[in-house]
């Protein structure tokens, strides 16, 4: 088998390798994106305005193991019967599915903060949306760099 020049031969090899890789890991490449996260938020709150601030997402800047990434979300609130945080929804824009966790708080909590551990498939943004008892919404976003993805296995 001959090739007209070296370049096209290399191209052919690269193409073959790429298509092989695509068939092998194709299904795993289906990831959510920022639009999918927005769609999830719209499902809950339609086009309501999202304010910034008040929501603090605490995650490691760099996660060595994407299978277990700690996340703590805290929302500024007096947590009284009149003024409390009703819910916090956490999303990841680079996972196969955008949803991570939703917390439902009550004034009995005294503090609107909760921690979980999540799986992250790759480096991506974590988005949190907090719903206050008066219906107002606040959001915050933070990036986590993932060294080894926690997707599939």
């Amino acid at each position, binding site marked *: 088998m001959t090739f007209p020049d070296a370049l096209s031969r290399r191209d052919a090899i690269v193409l073959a390798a790429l298509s092989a890789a695509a068939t092998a890991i194709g299904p795993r490449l289906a990831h959510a994106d920022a639009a999918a996260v927005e769609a999830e938020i719209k499902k809950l709150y339609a086009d309501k305005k999202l304010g910034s601030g008040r929501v603090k997402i605490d995650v490691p800047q760099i996660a060595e193991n994407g299978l277990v990434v700690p996340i703590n979300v805290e929302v500024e609130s007096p947590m009284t019967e009149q003024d409390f945080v009703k819910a916090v929804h956490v999303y990841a824009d680079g996972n196969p599915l955008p949803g991570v966790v939703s917390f439902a708080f009550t004034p009995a909590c005294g503090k609107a*903060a909760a921690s979980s551990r999540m799986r992250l498939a790759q480096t991506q943004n974590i988005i949190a949306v907090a719903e206050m008892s008066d219906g107002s919404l606040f959001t915050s976003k933070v990036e986590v760099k993932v060294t080894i993805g926690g997707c599939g296995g």
Partner: protein
Amino acid sequence: MSNKPVPRVRVPANAKKDELIEIKTLISHEMESGQRRDSAGKVIPRRIINTFTAEFDGKTVFEATWHPAISANPYQSFFYKAVKSGEFTFKWKDDDGSVYESKAKIQVA
């Protein structure tokens, strides 16, 4: 799942009135995401614990809805303002319909 999930909960036994306490919980569970494939290329069906609920004397105080992105052996912590003595009931709801339960008492002085 080979073993029955075992919940572990840390609640302080005593608290002062109006003290803010942190409650930490952990349960053993594989949290099969439904995204993985077995060696034959077949999708392994999703099986996770989808809801965690904390009740105090029968009233829900905190709830978490978990998606497949939650790690295996899920950890959950949250806060509670100790107002009176009573008992917490923690419930984990599995996709297969099972509910795992754990209880803890607190004495408020």
